Every structure is written in structure tokens, then in C-alpha cells.
């Protein structure tokens, strides 16, 4: 596909300035206290700060509580099918590299039914932001076990408690060839959430952000430890990641982690003794699928003239 811009689009004088309200659509109907609200606010703030044109911005989601996200954004949105936000996003970016694409997925969407797409989207490394809103449970369908549900956690599908240890989305992502940006943040620390989203947005490539979040309806106690005890949290800080200087007073456990160090990133991801937030890994030199496939745009006339030459090869 081609890399090009529409000169017609440029021709329209555009001196609009966007405020937060310009990105707000319907009133969010998530439960009070749901982590989705904080993510929505942080994302709207990001769009305002970046002055993204609402018509050139797309939010793609699958199915689940968090997948209602696009409905609350006054941008273009694609609320598709369960687990398939990433193929749709891939199609959009391949056809329209000019659009800013955000995929918003829940843990069921990304880590379970769409896991195959997730792995391959990491490898394609298309320039977009993928948010995993991970509340460790299926909420929309009322409390079924998800792949990230803690072992032993009771649910409607596994009333005796989840049989298996949870899947670790960070170590999976960091294990995939061509991963280029992996971060984790939490919805209850808005400044860190915002700073992480901003880094993800500015990264050229597939930016994967896992956002830990509460589900007040089904797992209200899930992150209680981490919320009430700052010592449970460890910040990964770096100038090329999130520095979180404003949080120095609250979160004392700060590790200077160079995000180019993938081995360290994998060790941090594997070790579950702390809730570790920040940019784990980033490498802009990884090939991006849409870039490797750029081709010049041809006019209809040119295409047909090439096609005519092709027919010469088949002529009798």
C-alpha cells in the first residue's frame, strides 16, 4: 500500500482547537467505580493534549465491558466482534496509515478468544496503540473466569475457584518476535496512566499497554492491596519510559530500568512479587509491517496501463 496524503484534505484550512469536551460522546454507562472510567478520562486528555482530529482518530474494540469504550468517544469507532479488534485495526491501518488507531480490549478479548490475533499483531508491529483493560474477569456476561483471573478465584464458570495459574500478558507479549513497546500501568494512578499512554502514543510501532483495573461489581477486592499499600507497587523509571517524578513522594520503590534491555524487561514481567508499572520495553528499530509494504500510489490510468502490459504475457 502507499504512503501518501490527500492534498484535498490539506486544502481545507483547519484552525480548530479541541477541548476535552470535543472528544466526549455519550455518558459512560459503566458501573460506578469501574476502572474503565479512569482510562476514558486519560485517553480524552491525551487526545486533547495531542490535538488529534476527531475525524482522523479511530477506536476499535471487541466485545466486553471495556469494548463499549468507542461509544463514549466522539471520534470514529468500530465496536466489532469478540476478540477481533486487532485484525480490524490492522485492516484500517493498512488501508489508511493516516488514521490514528487505538484498539481497546478486555482480558477476555485479547488474552482469550483473540489471543491468536494478539500474538500476530505484536509481530506485525503496526503503528498503533493497543490497550488491554485487564480486570481479571468477564464482567459484561457476569463473572466468568478469564485467562488472567487469579488462581483459586471463584466465578460462575469455575465456582470451585480458577483451576490454573493466570496467564501473564506481559511475559507473553515480551516473548513474541518483533515486540516493540510493552508497558503496564494502573487505572488508579491517573498521572502514571496518562504518562504511559502518552509514551505509547508517541512510540512508532505497536504499543501494547496493559492497564490493571478494578471491577467493583465482581472483583472489588482484586487490587485492594496495591491500592492501599504503595509498597506493593514498583515503578520502572527511565527518561525513555515514564519518569513519574510527581509520584516520588508516594511510591518509593523506583527502579531505573532501561527499556532497551529486553532481558531485564522479561525478568521484571516474570516476577510477580510486586505490581510493577512503567515502560518495560521499547525499540523503535523493529520493522513495521505497514512500512515494509509501502508502494507508490498509481492513478486508474496508470493501473490499467500496467494491467494491459500484464495481458501481453497472456496474449494469444
Amino acid at each position, binding site marked *: 500500500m502507499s504512503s501518501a496524503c490527500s492534498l484535498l484534505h*490539506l*486544502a481545507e484550512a483547519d484552525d480548530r482547537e479541541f477541548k476535552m469536551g470535543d472528544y466526549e460522546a455519550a455518558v459512560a454507562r459503566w458501573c460506578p467505580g469501574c476502572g474503565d472510567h479512569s482510562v476514558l478520562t486519560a485517553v480524552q486528555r491525551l487526545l486533547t493534549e495531542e490535538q488529534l482530529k476527531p475525524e482522523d482518530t479511530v477506536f476499535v474494540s471487541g466485545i466486553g465491558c471495556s469494548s463499549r469504550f468507542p461509544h463514549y468517544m466522539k471520534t470514529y469507532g468500530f465496536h466489532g466482534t469478540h476478540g477481533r479488534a486487532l485484525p480490524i485495526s490492522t485492516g484500517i491501518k493498512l488501508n489508511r496509515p493516516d488514521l490514528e488507531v487505538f484498539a481497546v480490549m478486555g482480558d477476555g478479548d485479547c488474552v482469550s478468544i483473540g489471543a491468536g490475533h494478539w500474538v500476530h499483531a505484536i509481530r506485525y508491529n503496526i503503528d498503533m496503540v493497543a490497550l488491554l483493560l485487564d480486570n481479571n474477569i468477564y464482567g459484561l456476561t457476569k463473572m466468568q473466569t478469564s485467562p488472567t483471573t487469579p488462581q483459586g478465584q471463584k466465578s460462575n464458570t469455575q465456582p470451585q475457584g480458577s483451576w490454573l495459574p493466570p496467564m501473564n500478558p506481559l511475559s507473553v507479549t515480551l516473548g513474541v518476535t518483533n515486540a516493540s513497546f510493552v508497558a503496564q500501568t494502573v487505572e488508579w494512578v491517573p498521572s502514571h496512566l496518562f504518562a504511559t499512554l502518552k509514551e505509547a502514543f508517541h512510540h512508532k510501532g505497536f504499543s501494547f499497554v496493559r492497564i490493571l483495573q478494578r471491577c467493583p461489581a465482581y472483583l472489588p477486592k482484586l487490587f485492594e492491596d496495591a491500592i492501599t499499600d504503595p509498597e506493593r507497587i514498583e515503578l520502572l523509571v527511565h*527518561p525513555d519510559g515514564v519518569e513519574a517524578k510527581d509520584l516520588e513522594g508516594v511510591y518509593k520503590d523506583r527502579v531505573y530500568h532501561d527499556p532497551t534491555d529486553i532481558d531485564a524487561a522479561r525478568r521484571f514481567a516474570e516476577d510477580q512479587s510486586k505490581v510493577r508499572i512503567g515502560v518495560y520495553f521499547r525499540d523503535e528499530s523493529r520493522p513495521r509491517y505497514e512500512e515494509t509494504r509501502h508502494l507508490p500510489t498509481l*492513478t486508474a490510468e496508470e493501473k490499467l496501463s500496467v494491467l494491459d502490459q500484464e495481458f501481453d504475457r497472456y496474449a494469444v
Partner: protein
Amino acid sequence: MPSEDRIAQALEAISDTKDFFVSSVAMSAEEVRGVLERERGVNENPQVRLAHELGPFAAGRIDLERLAPVIGVNETLGEETRRKIQSAFEALMDLKKAGDEIFTAKVPLDGYLRGTVFAALGRVGVAFGAARSVEWALHDIAPPEGVEDALERFPPNLWNRAERGCSPPIVIEVEGQDLRAASLGELLEGSQKIVLVVNGPAAPAPLVRLITPGVTVIQTDDPTQLSALAASPGPGVAALMPEGAAKFTHVPGEGKGLNERLNVEYLPEKEPKRALGAISAFQQVEELRQLASMTASVEAMATMEVESGSGAPPMDEAGQLASWLIHQANFTGV
């Protein structure tokens, strides 16, 4: 090396930007074709058009008399509007077919460099003029003042901010004696890339005055060094110089400090003694000295960095300069 070869090398170096622009012209031509396709002319038979669009598979199978009113080729454009859009379409198609020639120009001997660049950009800028003409035609707006024939020339002073961000690169052939680079400063905006292929005797550091924090400036005799110009997102100018001139690259993306941005590969020792055309010897010496002093401060900063150790978090430019000054004044440890 013959200048045609050097022009070819210059074009090659900026080919990504050039291809992007050509692709944008093609894309826009296609969009305008779409406008012409959707908006049926007043006197046009929609069935004939549909027959073409659907192709022979539909022939005999689809009743176009019934289909035409259903799938909305009903909107009409006035003859005049349609004609204007058609002319804009043709202007874009002409540019698409023109090839590399629209991205090059030559300054006549004793000519005015800025004037040539401005005129060349005005010619290739017709792409923007054509796109604007479509907008004006569709919305029945008169072209703004200062626009004579947007399909003939549409120079950079008429481009808006968005257009300057997608500006066409340009390769200019110029004699060393006519290389009065400072005049280009105002054109280096948005993503404008200018490559100068310099012939004959030239001043040793003519581009030095263009070094400002956001602009890529390259002086070299090695075409492979031009890749840094193509890679930088912002504006930039590069000169393929004759032998003997200073060689340096100033790349904003390399870092915040001048020592990170500026890399001087060769600094001639001999100061010029003779005027070149209208460029006085004094001016040439000025430029060379300016580059020399920049080189000196860059080297000093580098020394300072080694001494202070590389593990510390990097500082911004002001910080660096301050600590360098402190270092020079022997205040360290105070």
C-alpha cells in the same frame, strides 16, 4: 563528476520524500476523479456511466434504467464547476506524469537562488493549487487574493501550514558564486527539503548561517550523507559541494545539545581571500569562522561529558552550556 550524475544522486537521496509527494498527487488525482464520478454532470446520461462502471458482466443482466435512479448518481454539478474540477484533475494528472523534472531547477549564471527555488516550488506547488481549486469549485468560493492561476503556479507563500508539512522536495543546481544561502531561510519551514548541487568554485561554508535548532543542514561532497536530510521530519537543506569546502551535518533529531546535533567532518584551514561574484571574501571568512567557533564549543562539550561520566541522566542544552561554562571557569567542586 558531471552535474547530471550529481543531480541524479540528489534526487535519489530525497526519493522517499519525492515518492511520498508523487503518491499524494496520485491519491489526490484519484480523489478528484471520485468527485467527478459521484457528481454527475447536468448533461450526462447516468446509465451510460453505470454501464461503464459495472463492466461487461452486468451487460444484459442488470437493467440500468432501473438501477441508475437507485444508486444515487443523481446529484448534479453545474457545467462551470465541473469544468473547473476537470481542469484541476488534469493538472494533477500532468504533475503525476511529469517525472523528476518538476523536482529540479537550475539557477542561471548570476541568477537569484531564492527566486529560482521559489519559482520551482511554485510550479510543483500546483498540486496544492489544484486541490484548492477543487475545494473552491465545490463550495463556490472565489480564490483568495494573490492567486492568479492556481493551476499554473502556486508558490510557497500561498501554502497553508498543513501543506507546508507535506511540501515537495526540490533539487537546485547552482554555481558557487550564486550560492547566497541565507536567502533560503524563510523557505525552510514545515517539511521543506532543498538540495543544492553546487558547481564551480564556491565559498567554504555557505550554509552555516542556516543552522538553527530545528533545521537540518548538511554540507558535503558525499551523496550518501544526504540520507540524513531525507530521514529528518522537519525542514532541511543540503549542499553537494565541490571539493575543498567544509563538510558538516547538523541534524536536529540527534539530540538537544549542539554537540549532539552538529558533526563537523572537515573544516578547511585556509581562509578565502578573494570575492566570488557578489560574495565578498569577508563574508566567506565570516561563515568559516562561525563554523570554526561552533566546532570548538562542540568539542569542549564533548570533553566535559567524558569527564562528568556518561551514567548521569542527560541534561538539556541550557544545562549543558551552564555546566560547560562552570567547567571552563574552574568552578567545579564549589
